[in-house]
């Protein structure tokens, strides 16, 4: 499945080695490069990345709508917008959607699009598996959300879904089954994606791209994929146990049969804490790309940035029980996890200071991307500091499960992860789509987000310390919590305005670009540093005309700039002279395939079958089998299928030997 860049060996019989070009004679490979067929059959990491992004953005609006409902319900005491039952479903799905269907896939969008470009590869290591990852994520996410309409409501157990409250006795609707099965499906997607990206980074780097010349974004994604690879099996086990408890009467979490309800908590958080870093490290990577570019300085302390990321990833495995300080684990465990949690603050602090040092003495240009990146540095700091107050275990017994915690993780995940992802969107938009997002609208978007975000989540610190528990469907007028809840509800509408503006920006930027005759932003519109900017925008299908040979970290920058005697950057070559033209022909790329889609489409049927009627498992299993067989008998690359040749197959044939 790896990229094949040479002809298959000819057989001695003279027949072509892959004689059956249309395996099973059903799904012929599409040859079009546009239209919906090119998308549903694509194995191109860039198209897959864009599809991840679009899907995640869609789910972001879904989860945002759920958040708005939550805030409307809490705008006044004894709110009646949602019933208690519906409220429990809505906050559960808000959390599950934001974590698994928005931030993770949005980060996967960037990883898919950028990792091959940043290491100088033509695609990921396993392009069809990459497509499978996406379709599994999409179907898993859609499956999860169909719980609203099929089967009596969404999961009502919180995103953490503690046993035994998630058992069938206490949550008799199918909601929790959607949760377990949906997350199992998206978990397969993430596991496959992790393996794919790890192999890509480790094996497909361009000549000279040693590990310590990789961009920090690539490094952070590598750490993230490692975390995914090792943490997903844990949640998979937990979800399997819960599925068997609920659907087949097993007793893993049945206290009456001697189960210890803390088993689920340990399993969940051994996954759940690394998951926090899975959500935040991609954004750390993004701002580590954006800040140097707009400061015109290299990242300050590259080794510290890389090693602190690795340290965070590593220490992330030793802090899970800080989610359980009040759970009844003994004081020795609490002390150990409290100390471990304190010391994970150190590498995080290093990152913040190194970003500031990168800007220090720079020549900063405040584009929208830079604003979002600096916003992350400021806002994540608040989340990090409230995290330190949680590490003080006795204090955490007062703070945990209150709105202080809600404030904390929103400062981390919104103020950190999401701001970083928006920064990345404004930064790489021209690379992916060949036109800019409007900067004026972008800056308005930024300020609405920052103001709305702080109005919404800032007061939650106060509410939490004033005793407002989380996951309560309402509070009493006599609790004295009304004022700050009103402020928080007001804030959510400011965020909503910002997001609608962002949506408008996407549309209007495209239209005005089209109206202006589609001017090209050029390969390197921001005067950037990493390899993806050395190729045209939008990225040609074959990525690189020739795979670059890398001589240093920030290789592309060093092709443009040298240093004078004061260490200042001085231009040594015009950008146009060092960027690739994107006009290579005959580059042999993996061919599209429908089978990842077919295989993935089977899993929701199996999910519905497990919930409603086992007969439904049959079509699901058949789809999976069809997908597997079709995939296995389909060569990963059609020998005559050339990309980027703009011409005839014959022309491509001539060029072929010169490439790769």
């Amino acid at each position: 499945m790896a990229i094949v860049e040479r002809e298959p060996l000819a057989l001695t019989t003279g027949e072509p080695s892959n004689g059956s070009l249309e395996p099973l004679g059903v799904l012929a490979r599409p040859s079009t490069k546009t239209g919906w067929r090119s998308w549903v059959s694509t194995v191109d990491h860039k198209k897959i990345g864009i599809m991840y992004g679009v899907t995640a953005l869609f789910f972001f609006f879904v989860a945002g709508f759920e958040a708005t409902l939550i805030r409307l319900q809490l705008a006044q005491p004894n709110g009646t917008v949602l019933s208690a039952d519906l409220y429990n479903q809505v906050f559960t799905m808000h959390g599950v959607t934001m974590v698994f269907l928005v931030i993770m896939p949005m980060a996967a969008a960037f990883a898919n699009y950028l990792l091959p470009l940043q290491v100088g590869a033509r695609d990921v290591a396993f392009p069809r598996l990459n497509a499978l990852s996406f379709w599994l994520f999409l179907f898993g996410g859609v499956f999860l959300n169909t719980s609203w309409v099929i089967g009596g409501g969404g999961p009502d157990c919180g995103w953490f879904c503690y046993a035994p409250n998630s058992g069938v006795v206490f949550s008799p609707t199918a909601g929790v089954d959607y949760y377990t099965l949906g997350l199992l499906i998206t978990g397969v997607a993430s596991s496959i994606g992790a393996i794919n990206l790890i192999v890509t980074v480790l094996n497909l780097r361009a000549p000279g791209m040693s590990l310590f010349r990789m961009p920090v974004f690539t490094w952070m994604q590598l750490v993230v994929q490692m975390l995914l690879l090792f943490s997903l099996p844990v949640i998979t086990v937990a979800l399997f146990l819960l599925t068997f408890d609920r659907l087949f009467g097993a007793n893993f979490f049945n206290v009456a049969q001697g189960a210890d309800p803390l088993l689920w908590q340990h399993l969940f958080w051994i996954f759940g804490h690394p998951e926090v870093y899975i959500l935040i490290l991609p954004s750390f990577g993004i701002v580590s790309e954006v800040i140097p570019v707009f400061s015109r300085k290299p990242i300050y302390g590259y080794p510290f940035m890389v090693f602190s990321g690795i340290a965070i990833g590593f220490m992330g495995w030793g802090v899970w029980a800080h989610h359980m300080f009040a759970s009844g684990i003994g004081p020795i465990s609490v002390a150990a996890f409290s100390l471990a949690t304190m010391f994970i603050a150190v590498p995080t602090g290093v990152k913040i200071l190194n970003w500031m040092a990168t800007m220090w003495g720079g020549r900063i240009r405040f584009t929208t991307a830079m604003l979002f990146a600096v916003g992350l540095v400021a806002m994540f700091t608040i989340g990090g500091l409230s995290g330190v107050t949680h590490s003080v275990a006795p204090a955490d017994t007062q703070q945990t499960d209150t709105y202080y915690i809600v404030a904390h993780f929103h400062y981390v995940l919104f103020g950190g992860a999401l701001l970083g992802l928006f920064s990345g969107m404004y930064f790489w938009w021209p690379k992916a789509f060949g036109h800019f997002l409007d900067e004026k609208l972008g800056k308005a978007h930024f300020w609405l987000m920052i103001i709305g975000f702080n109005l919404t989540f800032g007061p939650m610190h106060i509410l939490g310390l004033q005793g407002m528990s989380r996951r309560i469907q309402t509070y009493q007028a006599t609790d004295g919590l009304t004022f700050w809840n009103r402020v928080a509800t007001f804030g959510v509408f400011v965020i909503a305005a910002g997001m609608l503006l962002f949506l408008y920006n996407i549309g209007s930027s495209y239209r005005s670009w089209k109206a202006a005759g589609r001017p090209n932003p050029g390969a390197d519109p921001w005067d950037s540093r990493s390899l993806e900017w050395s190729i045209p925008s939008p990225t040609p299908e074959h990525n690189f005309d020739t795979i670059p040979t890398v001589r240093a970290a920030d290789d592309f920058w060093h092709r443009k700039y040298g240093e004078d005697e004061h260490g200042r950057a001085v231009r040594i070559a015009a950008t146009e002279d060092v960027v690739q033209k994107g006009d290579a022909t005959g580059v042999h790329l993996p061919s599209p395939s429908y089978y990842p889609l077919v295989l993935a489409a089977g899993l929701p049927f199996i999910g519905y079958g497990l919930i409603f009627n086992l007969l439904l498992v049959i079509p699901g299993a058949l789809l999976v089998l069809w997908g597997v067989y079709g995939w296995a008998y389909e060569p990963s690359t059609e020998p005559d299928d050339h990309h980027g040749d703009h011409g005839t197959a014959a022309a491509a044939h001539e060029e072929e030997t010169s490439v790769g």
Partner: protein
Amino acid sequence: MRAGGWRVGQGDDKLSATVNGRNGDHDETRGWENSMIGRKRRTGALATSLIVLAMVALTGCGSDGRPLTTLDPRGQASTDIHKLVVPVFIVAGIVFVFVNLGVLFVAIKFRRKDEDEFPEQVHGNTKLELGWTILPAVIMAGIAVGTIATLFNIANEPDDIAQDFEVTVVGQQWWWSFEYDLGRDGTIDFVTASEMVIPTGTPVKITTTSRDVIHSFWIPALNGKKDAAPGRNHPFWLNADAPGRYLGQCTEFCGLSHGYMRMLVEARDQGDFEAWVANQMKPAAIPAASDEAARRGLEVFTGACTSCHQVQGVNSNDCTPITSASQYDVAKNTCWVGAQPYAGAAQVSGYAPDLTHLMSRYLFVGALYDLRGPTTGELNRAELEGWIRNPDDYKPMLPEATGDNKYGRGMPKVPLTEDQIDDLVAYLSTLK
């Protein structure tokens, strides 16, 4: 009317003076806050205003009208926690101000004025970076020392813990029961619901557990949280420095009515407490023959309510109360819906509050509503009747059995006539 009269630590200074020496700790807390204010004056102007703003937002509004606040500790454990966390908040506040002012400074000072400007290409400075790796480590080490000391301090039972009784706190969907073991001999002597009464000053040994899912016992003014998990007994303790009523809220998501699962700890002076205990130990009196309404109400009660509720002296023979504090033993409890013993009962709520001394309490329906006026002690008849008439208006519950949920959880709507409800309330009013 929703419960509204409760304030954290209603005991004023006059009352506190009569209790034990823990008031000294209390004063120290105030001292902390004073020295904090002193410190603020010495820091930079903007830093000061930011921290002041934060502190005003956090504490300045005070605890008045915020019965659940964590910022006004009224017990030994909560005071220890407060003393630990306030310096951490200050350190965090300083770092916050430093970083954000730093970002602001950098953003203004190093703006690009000319597109052709290029700065010196600094790649890092190992010594500097090692410095700011070590600095946070040192700060964290300092915080760690205080954390570990306080942690074990609170985890250990205080020496002066009450020797004459302990309480098992049992969570169930969606209310709390408190099982008193006088003499700490492993036998439950009486059970209350929603409200727990303790003597002022003395730390009380508590064991938390649950009859169904995981709940969390939290009285913010007195101590942090302790989860109540089925099949597990978690040791815990708390005390209150002054007489008062301290509100709490279940803080582990426990299903449908989680938000409506509250509880109250009331601290009384020793004499008051002993009188309360003596009263709780008595079985309920059968209403006098002259009180016809109450007599009729008793009949309604035994006909419609006793399959779930208990009144000692009325149906204690059918519904044996819990007998073991050290290991909550559900198998021995035969008081389930329909009086059917259910071996797997740890999984299902069905056991309803003990009503023997209902009228000695102030709150009902998960400590959400006033049963009696907080000052007048007058019965809140309208809401008691309303609750009996249609419980679902007051608190969402799942009283019907569904599938694996064999007994339902919560108060069902019992078909009673208005006359029957009047009689029933007349009877319940006798349960002093």
